[in-house]
């Protein structure tokens, strides 16, 4: 027993010695080391290739790509910021105001001016999302739009006319009713009950709003907002869409890919999944149906931000400039990772089966995902109450009234 323990211990000691003395990656003596942190595993291979190319063009810069999964990303960023050991360049999303206002992000305006880069080369709502109090704190990466996808095979089989651009919400309900009358096997309408692919669009399309232009007032209690929630609940009540219980067990996308649904509201960020479906040639995209005030899509998207405490800001800027430039965008677009926010690179984004013009149109008419200093807080409130409305614990009116109050309280707190 004792012998075994000694053996294990000495083995461990040897291992730990080995671990400590493992040779560092060799680079040229004068090389600058940069760290770049992302959260999406799916995009990692593309980014490794992008960085390889960047290093070829900039042999004096050595970039280390770090992957922290989404669920730990923000905790880690906060901890690392506090200890001044965060990555030099990292992905940012709608939480940008929180970090920019705390002085943790480097404003990029000076670099942009020096290199003569004009922000109007990017889609306006994407560029606007990484601006805070008039200054540019990030360079847009890509953008997400929401549209409706449908299964042509199902429409053909049941003899229902396929959706056409310019259709209305009423048209959609009518088609769903026809499909329902002909088959009890399929769900006519599917969506994931998250803000971006679902209710944030409908709220704005009905004349409601999440934040007003000043960003200080919420319109979640407005008639338009209530209307949006009421319409979703109605779809469930009429059996045109699975209820919240089914949708929380199984993702709407999964049901659609299993040919259990005819129409699906889905974000462009999941487009590459459609090619894996095995019936991709039967899937088509169409703009969302028109509601009272249009069919505009929420536009989300990420940006590249620079750590304000970064050691070598010139090198970090070079990396950001490359990442948001044409070449890096082309590589991502070709892998169908993202629709580039850089307009000149959008031509490279081609989906195998669906008409990408639908996505670009949504990008041009869309509105940015609302954000503010305490976005994380009020987003939580909205998703909690929305869940209760969809589970029918609250009526749309009750839920919206409660959201209005709580979200407004949070927004008021931002002002003090």
């Amino acid at each position, binding site marked *: 027993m004792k012998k075994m323990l000694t053996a294990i211990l000495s083995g461990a000691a040897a291992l730990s010695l080995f671990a400590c003395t493992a040779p560092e990656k060799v680079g040229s003596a004068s090389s600058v080391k940069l760290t770049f942190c992302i959260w999406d*595993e799916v995009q990692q291979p593309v980014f490794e290739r992008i960085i390889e190319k960047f290093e070829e063009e900039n042999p004096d810069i050595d970039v280390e790509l770090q992957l922290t999964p989404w669920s730990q990303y923000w905790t880690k960023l906060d901890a690392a910021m506090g200890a001044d*050991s965060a990555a030099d360049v990292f992905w940012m999303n709608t939480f940008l105001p929180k970090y920019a206002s705390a002085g943790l992000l480097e404003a990029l305006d000076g670099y942009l001016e020096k290199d003569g880069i004009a922000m109007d080369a990017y889609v306006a709502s994407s560029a606007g999302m990484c601006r805070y109090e008039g200054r540019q704190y990030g360079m847009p990466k890509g953008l997400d739009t929401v549209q409706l996808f449908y299964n042509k095979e199902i429409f053909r089989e049941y003899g229902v006319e396929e959706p056409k651009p310019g259709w209305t919400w009423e048209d959609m309900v009518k088609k769903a009713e026809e499909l329902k009358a002909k088959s009890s096997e399929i769900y006519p309408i599917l969506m994931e009950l998250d803000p971006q692919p679902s209710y944030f669009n409908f709220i704005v399309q009905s004349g409601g709003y999440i934040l007003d232009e000043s960003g200080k007032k919420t319109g979640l209690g407005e008639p338009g907002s209530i209307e949006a929630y009421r319409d979703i609940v109605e779809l469930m009540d009429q059996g045109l869409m699975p209820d919240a219980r089914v949708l929380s067990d199984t993702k709407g996308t*999964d049901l659609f890919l299993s040919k259990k649904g005819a129409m699906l509201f889905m974000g462009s960020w999941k487009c590459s999944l459609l090619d894996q479906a095995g019936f991709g040639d039967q899937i088509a995209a169409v703009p969302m149906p028109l509601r009272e005030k249009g069919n505009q899509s929420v536009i989300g998207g990420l940006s590249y931000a620079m750590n304000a405490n970064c050691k070598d800001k010139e090198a970090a800027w070079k990396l950001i400039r490359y990442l948001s430039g044409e070449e890096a965008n082309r590589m991502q677009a070709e892998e169908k990772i993202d629709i580039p926010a850089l307009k000149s690179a959008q031509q490279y984004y081609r989906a195998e089966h669906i008409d990408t013009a639908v996505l670009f149109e949504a990008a041009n008419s869309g509105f940015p995902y609302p954000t503010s200093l305490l976005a994380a807080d009020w987003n939580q409130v909205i998703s909690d109450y929305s869940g209760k409305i969809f589970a029918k614990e609250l009526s749309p009116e009750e839920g919206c009234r409660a959201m209005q109050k709580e979200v407004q309280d949070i927004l008021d707190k931002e002002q003090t």
Partner: protein
Amino acid sequence: MKRGRERIILYAALSLCAFLTVFPFLWAVLTAFKSYEESIRIPPTFIPENFRLENFRIVLKKFPFSAFYANTFLMILFVIIFQLCLCSMAAYAFARLHFPGRELIFWSLLALLMAPGQIFLIPNYETMVKLHLADTVTALWLPKVFSAFGTYLLREFFRGIPRSLDEAAILDGCNYFQIYLWIHLPLIRPALSSLAILTAISAFKDLMWPLIVNNSMDKMTLSSGLSMLIGEHTTIYPQVMAGGLIAVLPMLLLFFIFQRQFIEGIATAGIKQ
């Protein structure tokens, strides 16, 4: 006859329970052989249409599993050794020695148990950065060398040992440390093995801390490394399951070897001797 029927019912109930326990694991194993499209299909398939090894190939290529194993092994080993030493010494002191403020210190130690572990994440991280230990294998285990729970558990066992043993030892000329080492420790061996097992499990399961403190892929443990397979919007479950299977196989092997100690260790944790 009646006994026979009782037996049948008993076995039926036990088989049902066994099935319920094994089923999720079986499901995970089978999913590892499916294609992504098959894994999300509705209605789901149980047996894969064809057993593909592709997921294992992808995962093995993506991750340095040998580093994951080595790091996990080192982490667990050091955590166990230090916890057993430090917690048992502290527990002995709290159980037997008389010093001013003993109860106060003990209860404030217990208060640590009430605080959720996440509270310590950022301070621990900052400490590691200041010690220049962030992104090292040492950082994986260093903050886990002591636990209030372990101290509490072992103190309860020490208190169960009759004082007459201490007195006899003192008469024979033992000092406190010798009593601890020669008399008390051997008596609470079952408690020590339960503590070792519980700490090993909790260290193995922890994926937050390694992900926070370390950046490099080759400084991750098995669980934290595998969590990197979770994408933002889509997760390729067959790959996660394949990775999980590779990660869990050695542990299963260890479990079968040490099965008796394992079960005894957990069973005795609740019994005061």
